[in-house]
């Protein structure tokens, strides 16, 4: 089996999902968005690997976990360049890139301190107005939050 130097730094998995090209400072947000805190499978997190494109990147290896597209696309908000390798019997059987969704529900916090969603217990809703440099528009206050100011619940 061919493995490059970067992948040798963490152990291989038999079946599951590898999420690569996560910006290092988004690792914990991705963990949180995917709800990995509550999953009991074996998982490996690596961070601060050198990456030409991202500067420092992080990687997540999840044994026996496979995601639906809608679920995995949620991480595009904080890791728009993330790539998924689906592993079956130690082999990459499928590669996927994440796609920024058209709408975002309940993940991000509205950046406007005067927004009603920051004052009452309301599930946030946004329309994605820019996918390249991610920017989301609040369904309630109509203000735009860009990726730099985006906070994840």
């Amino acid at each position: 089996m061919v493995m490059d130097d970067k992948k040798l730094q963490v152990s291989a998995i038999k079946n599951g999902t590898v999420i690569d090209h996560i910006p290092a400072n988004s690792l914990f947000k991705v963990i949180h968005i995917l709800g990995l805190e509550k999953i009991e499978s074996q998982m490996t997190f690596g961070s601060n690997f050198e990456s030409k494109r991202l500067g420092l990147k992080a990687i997540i290896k999840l044994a026996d976990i496979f995601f639906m597209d809608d679920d995995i696309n949620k991480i595009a908000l904080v890791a728009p360049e993330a790539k998924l390798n689906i592993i079956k019997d130690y082999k990459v059987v499928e590669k996927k890139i994440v796609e920024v969704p058209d709408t975002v529900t309940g993940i991000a916090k509205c950046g406007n301190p005067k927004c009603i969603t920051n004052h009452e217990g309301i599930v946030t809703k946004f329309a994605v107005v820019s996918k390249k440099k991610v920017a989301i528009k609040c369904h309630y206050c109509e203000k735009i939050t860009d990726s730099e100011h985006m906070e994840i619940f």
Partner: protein
Amino acid sequence: MENKNLVSITDYSKEEIFEILDLAADFEKNPNQNLLDNKVIATLFFEPSTRTRLSFESAISRLGGKYIGFTDASSSSVSKGESLKDTIMTVANYSDMIIMRHPIEGSARWASEVSRVPVVNAGDGANQHPTQTLLDLYSIRKTQGTLDNLDIFFVGDLKYGRTVHSLLQAMAMFNTTYHFISPKELRIPDEYKLFLDRKGLKYHEHREFDGIISDADIIYMTRIQRERFSDPMEYEKTKNSYVLKNGMLDNTKSNMKVLHPLPRVNEIDTDVDENEKAYYFTQALNGVYTRQAIITHILGLKK
């Protein structure tokens, strides 16, 4: 499709806007119509706005309806810590429509989602004030005979002025040419320039006010507030640079009208009031007809 609520001007199509403006014209001809007989309208003002509230209450009264409500949050259960959701769900039991002003942005959208009766947004923080926008559109159409292909000059606080932002969005449907005249600290935010770029509409930004308004069909004046300036020196330097004086109207087009959402402080000299190009007090009167139109349209009482 007809909207059950009026939360944001961008929820309304061109056709629906015209329906409301046509209805308002009907109310201008015949203001007293008993269409709200046996109807109760709630006017919930979580922050005071005497002018908007009186305009709504006048509209309801001319339609023969009754209204209940409060004029600021300190006289309501909000001061006891009640959530907006609870207030709205309770008041929806007592009324056929809720008209609300609230300092928090997005509050009207949220209210419209939890209320079982229609909600009309009478201003939510710096976000939207769609009934003002509709009365502005009514005033523009009435004085110009059309909404198409006009040159509109927005003057003053273009950064925080929500009436400017909403009117700008609505006028984008009508091939408007925009002129933005403001001090540097209060210039129109980039997101609105991007919006106009995407629509392919022309706009010009100016720092100077005098001598550039000869092409104007509408001059939309706004109030510059001291507290908007981070530097008080800057306020003192600029406060008199954006004042409309009667003499400035000499070389303007004969169809040109001056609009202002009111209240005015000193940004329009009082001697302009006598000029036939001054339209702001009639604009406020149009607000009553427009609000009659909005209420009856949403309740399906008049087609």
